[in-house]
């Protein structure tokens, strides 16, 4: 009995000490890597590689966005490297997963900044996670571009100051909301509109707010304003409420996972009014969830359309198809563009110095990319056009292009 006890005790001591030793060993080896990391970075200035980090949602709730951006960026880097790199230097891509969590996004940004010592970063796909990296970007003076973080406060803080080192390739939420409202008033002649927004996402709430403002300015009335929470599956009760308000147009900003079900259930309840959403709808899964028939008479605003007949766009679609054997969605295109946006700035800056690239990014003018030609405004937002698409029997059809 006592023997057994001492044995147990010995085992625990052993375990505990091995844990501590392990932790210390972890620390000491860390010291090793960090000091060598330091020396290699000073050497890295003159090396032949430009490191671009990507802090993306590769797992977790919005993994599909992060992975899409990663695929797009990979294609861009492959093309640039094949064409000789940036000023003769090859790009090294360093993707890191932030698990779709804001705290992990901060951790990942710190890792990219201090361990990998990247020249520039692609910031997370969603606005909240992108914000979680902004202060790190400023602190380490690493130019950071989010491909799809559309909330205004990614680049502009509440007090009106600008996050110097944070940029984006996409337009911002208010713009999409305004485009949707104008489309509803002018093209569909909607008067009584309903809004059904995802309350668990800042993106959808931002869109709903700007849509409401614009539609009221256009003389429309908001007859119902409802919200849902992500991961819901049953929307019928709220949709019944909306239906009884009798709107002739419903704006549903949100992500495809829920929107697919909302569209399906709305049609089941006999709501025939046109529905409209934004880039969060853009996924092939939407069609599977809602069904092609239910999706008729629905519209979205988007960054680009793979159906757009323009030559450069078709070239991109072909190249993407060849590599990943699927048709690129907006996130793929934005990821692709983000890399070219950074490349353009590095070339104009003529160096890999963070501040020089930052300056070049801020001075970008008339840069022509897949998702449009844009200049960067004083709030670090690209001024670019949006595309309105219509779903016809499950296929996105190019409807019109709206300039800011």
């Amino acid at each position: 009995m006592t023997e057994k006890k001492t044995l147990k005790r010995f085992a625990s001591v052993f375990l505990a000490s091995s844990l501590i030793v392990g932790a210390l060993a972890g620390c000491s080896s860390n010291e090793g890597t960090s000091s060598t990391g330091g020396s290699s970075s000073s050497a890295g200035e003159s090396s032949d590689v430009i490191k671009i980090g990507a802090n993306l949602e590769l797992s977790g709730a919005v993994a599909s966005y992060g992975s899409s951006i990663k695929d797009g960026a990979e294609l861009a880097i492959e093309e640039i490297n094949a064409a000789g790199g940036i000023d003769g230097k090859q790009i090294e891509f360093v993707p890191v997963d932030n698990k779709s969590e804001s705290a992990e996004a901060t951790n990942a940004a710190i890792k990219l900044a201090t361990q990998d010592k990247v020249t520039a970063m692609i910031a997370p796909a969603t606005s909240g996670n992108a914000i979680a990296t902004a202060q790190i970007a400023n602190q380490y003076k690493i130019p950071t571009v989010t491909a799809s973080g559309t909330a205004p406060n990614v680049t502009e803080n509440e007090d009106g100051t600008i996050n110097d080192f944070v940029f984006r390739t996409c337009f911002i939420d208010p713009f999409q909301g305004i485009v949707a409202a104008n489309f509803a008033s002018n093209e569909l002649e909607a008067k009584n509109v309903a809004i059904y927004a995802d309350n668990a996402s800042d993106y959808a709430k931002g869109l709903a707010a700007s849509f409401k403002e614009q539609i009221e300015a256009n003389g429309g009335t908001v007859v119902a304003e409802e919200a849902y929470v992500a991961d819901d599956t049953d929307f019928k009760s709220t949709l019944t409420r909306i239906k009884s308000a009798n709107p002739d147009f419903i704006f549903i900003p949100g992500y495809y996972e829920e929107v697919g079900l909302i569209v399906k259930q709305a049609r089941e309840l006999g709501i025939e009014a046109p529905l409209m959403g934004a880039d969060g709808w853009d996924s092939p899964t939407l069609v599977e969830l809602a069904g092609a028939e239910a999706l008729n008479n629905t519209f979205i605003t988007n960054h680009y359309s793979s159906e757009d007949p323009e030559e450069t766009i078709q070239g991109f679609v072909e190249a993407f198809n060849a590599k990943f054997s699927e048709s690129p969605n907006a996130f793929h295109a934005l990821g692709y563009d983000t890399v070219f946006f950074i490349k353009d700035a590095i070339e104009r800056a003529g160096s890999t110095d963070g501040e020089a690239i930052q300056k070049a990014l801020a001075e970008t003018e008339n840069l022509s990319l897949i998702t449009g030609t844009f200049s960067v405004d004083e709030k670090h937002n690209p001024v670019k056009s949006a595309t309105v698409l219509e779903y016809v029997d499950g296929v996105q059809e190019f409807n019109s292009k709206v300039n800011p």
Partner: protein
Amino acid sequence: MEWIQQLVNGISLGSIYALIALGYTMVYGIIKLINFAHGDVFMLGAFIGFYAIARWEIGFFPALIIAMALCAIIGVVIERVAYKRLRNATRIAALITAIGVSLLIENVVIYFRGASPEAYPEVLPETSINILGVNISSISILILAVTIVLMILLQFIVHKTKIGKAMRAVSLDPDAARLMGINVDNTISATFAIGSALAGAAGVIFGVYYTRIEPLMGVLPGLKAFIAAVFGGIGSIPGAMVGGLSLGVVETVVSALGFSLWRDAAAFVILILILILKPSGIFGKNTREKV
């Protein structure tokens, strides 16, 4: 008209909860363990049904039966591997194991197929029946029918068959049941098999009705079903049915009043109120917990 429509909405939502709650209440009734993994068996059922329908292209009813059979096996394996050793362990140990099993199933599924949602193919012709301005989906009628049939079947099994008698005996007092010559292990396994088969059926039906399935889909419905089971009285089969339907209607009413964002909170408030005010639920027997 709006309110009748809302009632219909509530009942179709509630019958899904009821279907999951039936299995929950059986398992809890017999081993007094909140089987957190029940929601995940429900998820596995949905995926099995999905692969059966979309990949092997078989019809709805064969897929339902395959999902039920496989889930029954999975349930028994979970019980034999993880829970059996813990029958005499503390409640906390059993509950933590259940949480562990639940996390394991979810993450193994995510590991193999990723976390992205999958859309169920259309297997049943879905038509909306319009009665005086109230739209009723044909599938929601089917769900309600299936739930009621399964409930009656369960009632029959539990009250009229030999295995049912054994189940009731084990749930009352496992030791005494063993002394009476009942094979307690097999009885518990049978309960798990039936409960998990029901969860599997619920998964397939959920998939057909709501279209979207994903690896974490079982978490919230699982909890809601537990709330429904507690509401109706743990261990009571009609209780689970009534609890599920009531919960569905309550949630729908909360949304219909314009508080859709508080819907989940409402479910948990109900749970807490029931636990504090009448822990035995609507149909439960008032038994003082033995310590």
